[in-house]
Each structure stands twice: as structure tokens, then as C-alpha cells.
């Protein structure tokens, strides 16, 4: 099963496309690609809002020093090579001969300017300042060589650079977010030029012929936003658009059979997991846990690792993947999928074992189980409301009588942040490095260190913290990797969170097109090409 979903599946099933003359790609069609995406793009300013749909579009217009390929591996972008030249120094060699859309040459000045802008975008609701923060000083060696001096050893700097889109100093000095949105300064080195932009509605692109990575396959791109799932699928079936992302799992079976449509899919980087209440002490009441008569328990069973393990064993992940997700997910025991840096090879998804779960619960002093409410959003992740109900069924079967409450994300996330829940379902889209989920979700909450900002269950394990701390300054890649894997292994054995599955990212397109599916969920026009006839 995993093997099946493991490899990035590039949609090349267009070989039989010739059978359908009506759908064949005519010359005119090849000129314009009409795409429909499910999540609205809110700004063309690449440093305004750290938001996946914005980042995907920014990657069409701009470039980064370090890019990531479809499987989330780091590859050269505007930098051709990089290395640590000292414990606190990184040197990047820049790509020669790169031009912005307006013809300006790309140089080290532009990189320095960009990093200076990151913390200074007014009103940014979620800025990119974190990536500039470790850098103490920038040294321009020559127009195509730049050095970053960091305050402390910072092995993750190249990873940080995969999030920073480079601007043109001359064009963007003093440019406001509105100037990007109007298209006036939406100028980068990327494969697409912005022709027009209607906020939250559509963006029109034209090909950047002088793109260093080779000109894209289409002359123009019409990038539309259709947030309603059914409407997006309908738009593809009606032929109004050529390509859609976030294909609803409910339509998968039908689309797979439809001769007019091709799918592309890849295991993603987003784990769906359950956060558990570690905030209340072993002898305190957890807010949504009672005994079977509805009376307070007087203790927090979730602080007992046997209970956590039992809850994990009670979940039939394969059933969730097959029945709820229609196969568009992989059962998971950790944050990252195989093949991505930071995956721990010897940690497996917990085996479904309801009898074992009952035994463990009895061992922990709950032979008759207890009552618990599972909270979750019902409009955020794929099938989130369905997953929590399915888990509720499974827990009830081992004696943990589960109530289920699904809320809109706007309401849910605030309550989760205040650690109001006993158990909650949430998702996490990782950067391709194990330190990323460790630092944000499994590390003890610490404002000073910037750790555990998304650790809503308040899990805390000193051993995990110690290994993470060591990894963050370890420049030796091999040693660092071992520290990161060890920390994740310990957290997994301790059942800090209960991983459920990793989502599969799915796109659908008119037959005659092919798409390189990306693990990071980004929907970008440069990944789409006409299929070879």
C-alpha cells in the first residue's frame, strides 16, 4: 500500500488521449492554461502573508535561492551552490545571467535587500521575519557571492532560504503590498509575469520567455479561485477549466473512471494527528473527560502513556484511509513520509489492536473505560469531520465512550490554542526536515526559545527537548540527522501525539495534460505540460 503511494506519480496516462478527438489538444488550447484552485490567494506580495496559496503563486512569479523539488528535496534555485564556511557563516554562490521580468539583472544586492525587507512589511498578519532573524550580518563578497553571518551556528539556514522569494532592489525599494496586488511591482525572476490580478478571483499570467530554467509550456495562464469543492470539480467536467487542485475525495472514484480526466497524486507532507491534553496534571481533571456516569474522574488519564497507547491502538487507520479518505492518504506513525529528510525508518504506524487496547486500559486502571470528547474542525482538513466521527466509533468500541464535536476552524483554533480540549484533531504541514515538527509541536512550549508554538496539547518531554536543542546548532549533517531522528523516535514511543495519516495531494486535469505532483501541495503552472502525444 505504502509502496503504491510512495513514489510521486506523474500523470502520464495521456497515451490514450488520441482516442478522444474532442478532447485533443488543439494549438489554440496549448496557448492558455486555465487552472482553478480551491484556496484563495490573498496577496501577490511574497513577504506579506506566510500562507500556502500565496506561496504557490509567489513561486510562479519569484524565485528563491534554494528551491525544493516535487519530493521536497532541496535543489539549486537562484543560488547554484552553498556551504558553511565557518561555524556561523554560510556562503551562497548566485546564478549568473538571471534577469527580472523588467530586464534588471539579479545580483547579491537584491538578496541583501530582500532579507532586509522581510521584517519590515507593514501590517503583515504572518511575516517572513523568522527567516531573517538568525542572520546577524550580510556580507556581499562580489555581485554573485553573498555571505550570511549568523548569531549562533544555524544548520537550517538553507532550509530557511527555501521560504524567501527574492525581490529586485531597484524595483521594490519602498514598494507596498498594494503595489504588488495591483500587479505594478509583481516583478520577479520566476517563470511567469503577472498580466492582471483580481483579488480573490483570478490572476492572469504570461510566460517569462527569458526564464533561466527554460520557458514554460504555455503562453498564458488563467489562475482562477473556486473555493467550493463541488463547483471546482464541476468546472473541470464542464470544460471551463483545464486543471484543478484539492480534488475532493468524494469525487475521486468517479473521476478515476472518467475518460476525459487524468489525475496526478503524491504523498504529501501534511500529517493529520490527535493532540492530547498534557497540560492538566495526572491528578487533575481534563475538561472533556469524565467517568462513565458523567462524574469527574479526579485524574487525567491522558498523562498515562498506557492510555495514550491504547487510544492509538484502538484506531483502525487502514479503515479510515480506505473508507473515509477513499485511499487518498497513508496511515502514519510520524510526521514525515518515507523518502523525505527527517523520516524515522523504524517507526511504524501503530497496529490496529482493539483487544490490546482494552488490556492496556484495564492495566492503567480503566477496565470499563471512561467518557471523553474528541474535538476537531469540520472545515479545515480533508474530511476532518468524518475522521473524528470514525475515531469516535473506534474508541467507543474499546470502552472509551467518545462524544465528537466538530466546529468551524475560526472557533476551533482559538480554543485549541488555549488548550481547552482533552483530545483534538489537527493537521500539520511540515517543512521537509524533522526539526520542523519537533520544534513546533513536540517541544516544550517556550516563548523564549520560540518552541512549541503549535504544541496545543502542551506535550513536554525533557529528553526530546535536549536532543532538539543539540540538533539546532549541529552543523554536521549526519550527526544532526541522528539527533532529529532520535528525538522523534522518543516522542513516538511516548505517544506525545497520535498520528493518523498523511494526506495524499491530488490534482485533476483534462486528458492531454500532465502534471508533476508536489509533496508540498503547491499548485503552480510550471509543473503542468501538454502530455506527449
Amino acid at each position, binding site marked *: 500500500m505504502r509502496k503504491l503511494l510512495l513514489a510521486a506519480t506523474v500523470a502520464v496516462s495521456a497515451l490514450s488521449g488520441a482516442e478522444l478527438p474532442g478532447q485533443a489538444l488543439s494549438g489554440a488550447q496549448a496557448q492558455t492554461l486555465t487552472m482553478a484552485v480551491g484556496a484563495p490567494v490573498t496577496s501577490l506580495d511574497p513577504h506579506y502573508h506566510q500562507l500556502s496559496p500565496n506561496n504557490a503563486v509567489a513561486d510562479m512569479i519569484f524565485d528563491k535561492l534554494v528551491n525544493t523539488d516535487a519530493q521536497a528535496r532541496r535543489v539549486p534555485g537562484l543560488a547554484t551552490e552553498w556551504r558553511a564556511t565557518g561555524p556561523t557563516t554560510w556562503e551562497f554562490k548566485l546564478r549568473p545571467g538571471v534577469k527580472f521580468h523588467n530586464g534588471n539583472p539579479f545580483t547579491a544586492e537584491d538578496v541583501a535587500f530582500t532579507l532586509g525587507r522581510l521584517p519590515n512589511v507593514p501590517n503583515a498578519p504572518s511575516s517572513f521575519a523568522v527567516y531573517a532573524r538568525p542572520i546577524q550580518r550580510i556580507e556581499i563578497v562580489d555581485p554573485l557571492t553573498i555571505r550570511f553571518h549568523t548569531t549562533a551556528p544555524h544548520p537550517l539556514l538553507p532550509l530557511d532560504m527555501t521560504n524567501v522569494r527574492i525581490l529586485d532592489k531597484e524595483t521594490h525599494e519602498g514598494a507596498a503590498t498594494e503595489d504588488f496586488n495591483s500587479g505594478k511591482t509583481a516583478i520577479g525572476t520566476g517563470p511567469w509575469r503577472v498580466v492582471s490580478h483580481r*483579488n480573490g478571483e483570478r490572476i492572469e499570467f504570461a510566460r517569462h520567455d527569458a526564464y533561466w530554467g527554460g520557458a514554460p509550456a504555455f503562453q498564458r495562464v488563467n489562475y482562477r479561485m473556486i473555493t*467550493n469543492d463541488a463547483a471546482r470539480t464541476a*468546472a473541470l467536467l464542464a470544460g471551463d477549466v483545464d486543471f484543478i487542485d484539492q480534488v475532493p475525495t468524494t469525487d475521486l472514484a468517479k473521476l478515476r473512471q472518467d475518460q476525459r480526466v487524468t489525475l496526478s497524486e503524491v504523498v504529501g507532507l501534511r500529517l493529520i494527528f490527535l493532540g492530547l491534553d498534557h497540560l492538566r496534571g495526572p491528578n487533575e481533571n481534563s475538561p472533556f473527560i469524565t467517568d462513565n456516569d458523567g462524574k469527574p474522574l479526579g485524574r487525567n488519564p491522558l498523562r498515562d502513556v498506557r492510555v495514550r497507547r491504547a487510544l492509538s491502538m484502538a484506531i483502525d487507520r487502514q479503515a479510515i484511509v480506505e473508507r473515509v479518505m477513499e485511499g487518498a492518504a497513508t496511515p502514519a506513525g510520524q510526521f514525515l513520509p518515507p523518502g523525505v529528510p527527517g523520516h524515522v525508518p523504524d517507526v511504524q504506524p501503530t497496529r490496529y489492536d482493539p483487544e490490546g487496547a482494552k488490556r492496556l486500559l484495564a492495566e492503567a486502571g480503566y477496565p470499563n473505560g471512561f467518557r471523553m470528547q474528541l474535538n476537531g474542525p469540520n472545515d479545515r482538513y480533508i474530511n476532518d469531520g468524518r475522521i473524528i466521527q470514525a475515531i469516535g466509533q473506534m474508541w467507543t468500541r474499546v470502552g472509551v465512550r467518545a462524544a465528537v464535536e466538530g466546529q468551524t476552524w475560526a472557533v476551533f483554533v482559538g480554543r485549541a490554542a488555549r488548550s481547552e480540549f482533552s483530545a483534538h484533531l489537527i493537521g500539520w504541514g511540515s517543512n521537509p526536515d524533522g526539526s520542523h515538527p519537533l520544534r513546533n509541536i513536540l517541544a516544550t512550549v517556550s516563548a523564549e526559545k520560540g518552541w512549541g508554538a503549535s504544541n496545543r496539547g502542551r506535550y513536554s518531554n525533557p529528553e526530546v527537548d535536549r536532543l532538539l536543542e543539540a540538533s539546532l546548532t549541529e552543523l554536521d549533517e549526519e550527526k544532526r540527522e541522528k539527533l532529529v531522528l532520535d528525538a522523534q523516535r522518543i516522542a513516538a514511543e511516548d505517544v506525545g501525539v497520535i498520528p493518523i495519516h498523511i494526506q495524499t495531494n491530488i490534482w485533476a486535469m483534462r486528458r492531454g495534460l500532465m502534471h508533476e505532483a508536489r509533496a508540498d501541495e503547491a499548485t503552480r503552472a510550471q509543473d503542468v505540460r501538454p502530455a506527449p502525444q
Partner: protein
Amino acid sequence: MSVYLLRRLIQAALVMLAMSVIVFIGVYAIGDPVEILISPDADQAERVRAIAALGLDKPLWEQYFSFLGNALRGDLGRSFVFNEPALQLIAQRAPATLELAFGATFLAVLVGLPLGLYAGLRPNGVGAKTIMAGSILGFSLPTFWVGLMLIMVFAVQLGWLPSTGRGETVEILGMRWSFLTRDGLAHMAMPALNLALFKISLVIRLTRAGVRETMLMDFVKFARAKGLSPRRVIGVHVFKNILIPVVTVVGLELGSTIAFSVVTESVFAWPGMGKLIIDSINVLDRPVIVAYLMSIVLMFIIINLVVDLLYSVLDPRVRLESKG
């Protein structure tokens, strides 16, 4: 008359003030916008910065009064999400919603009034019964369901109409309208019908009820007895009488159509204000929510005022002065 208008305007201002307070508290109670907007990557320091950048670090009353101060100067704040003035965002989306709402209202009157008249005049005919059955179905079908059915049938199965979106637009007075192009009209047909369905039924029923009541009234009998042609009786006397409830309801419904086009807009991916507001609620973009509601309230007050004025013209028994 002018005293009456002035009083209504003062009342309007008070209503808007009350609205803004309620919305401020309401949005505050729903959740924390920063939690929604912030990247999961952000650490605590970045969260603190974002809270300050959006002005959410101040106490609620202080945020409210600074909002009020700016509002008096015509500045309703900048969207947290788009970093553009909220009013500008709404103004950009307004034409799409307005033309949809007017299109739906137009359809409702165009279809509903003649059908209602017919059903009222020949209440026992097969046609009337069919019309009334249809109107009951129109009330009974949930909008989102009808929307999807329309897409399934007319876009996916038959391929007659584009499934979603707004299509080609023409720019007039700095705003983009789609009802002036063929492509735009094709895009507008289904959402406008979807939005109109409920109101067609409403107009049919109101018209029919009005006709049936009016036909029994003494003045109609008198007019008939006087030998006026049936056409004149219906066209002038009856018509004028049934217009009162129809005007009231259509007027009131116009406002609610504009406000409630949320569902239709999200099913048909119609880029209007309704879609903006539902997106804004989802991310708790308070400045947009507040600005949107203020605009809607203003519009409602104007519509109500116009309806009241029309009412007094159509039915002299209702005197405006009596309201004070």
C-alpha cells in the same frame, strides 16, 4: 417631511453605531484572528509582532474607539488579510453582487407578477394550480441544493452554460459589470435564477393573494358595475392595490438578497460581496466584516426608507407623520 427624513437619518446613525459595537464584540467573541492568520511556522515572537501589527494588542474598547475615530473620517480600517482598505475591497466586489441581486429581483418580478396575476384571476384553473404548486416547490428547495442541481444539469450534463465564475466584464464608471456582455450574461443566468427562485414564489403568492382579495373589494365591484373594461379594472384598480405588499416585500427582499447572496455566491464561485464576507468570517478579518455590515446596514436603511415613502404614496391611509 424633512423633519421626518432627518429623524430617520439620526436613527440610522444610531443603528449603525449599535451595529458596529455588536460586531466588534461579536467578532471578538468568535475567536482570535491572529491564530487563524498566522503561519503555523511562526514562533511566539512572531505572534506577538503580528498581534501588534494588527493593533490587537490594545484593549477592545481602545481598538473600538480608534476604529470609531477613523470611521468618522471615512476610514473603516484595512483588511487583515489583503492589507487593503476594507471599503475599497467591498467596493470592488459590490458590482458583482448588485448585478446579481438586481438580476434576481428583475427575474422575480418579471416571472412572478404575471404568473401571480394569472393564478389570482383564475384561481381554479389547471394553470393556476400548476403555478401554485411550482411556487410551493420554489419555497421548499434549499438554495445550495438547487444551485448544485443547476450546475449538474445545465453545465455538466447539457453543457449549455458555464458552471461557475463571472465571465467577461465591461468597465463602466470604474466598475466592472458582466451583464453587458454575452459571456457575462451566460455566467449570470444560473446564479441569478438560483437566487431568484425563492422570490419568484414569494411574488407569485403575494400577487395572487392580493388579486383575490382585491377582486372582492367593494371598489372593484363598483368599478365593474360602472362598466369599466376588465383590463382597466385589473390594470389600474387591482394592480395598484396589490402593488403595496409586492413593493414592500420586493424592496425588503432586495436588501436581504444582497446580504444573503452568500450561499449562491459560494456555490457558483461568484466573486461578490457575499463571498468576501464568508471568506472574511472564516478568517475573522474584522475590518472587512465591520465595513461590510456597516455598508449593508446603510443600504438597508435606505431601502426601508424608500419602501416607506413608496408605501405612503401607494396607500394614502398610511401617513408618515403618524410615525413620530
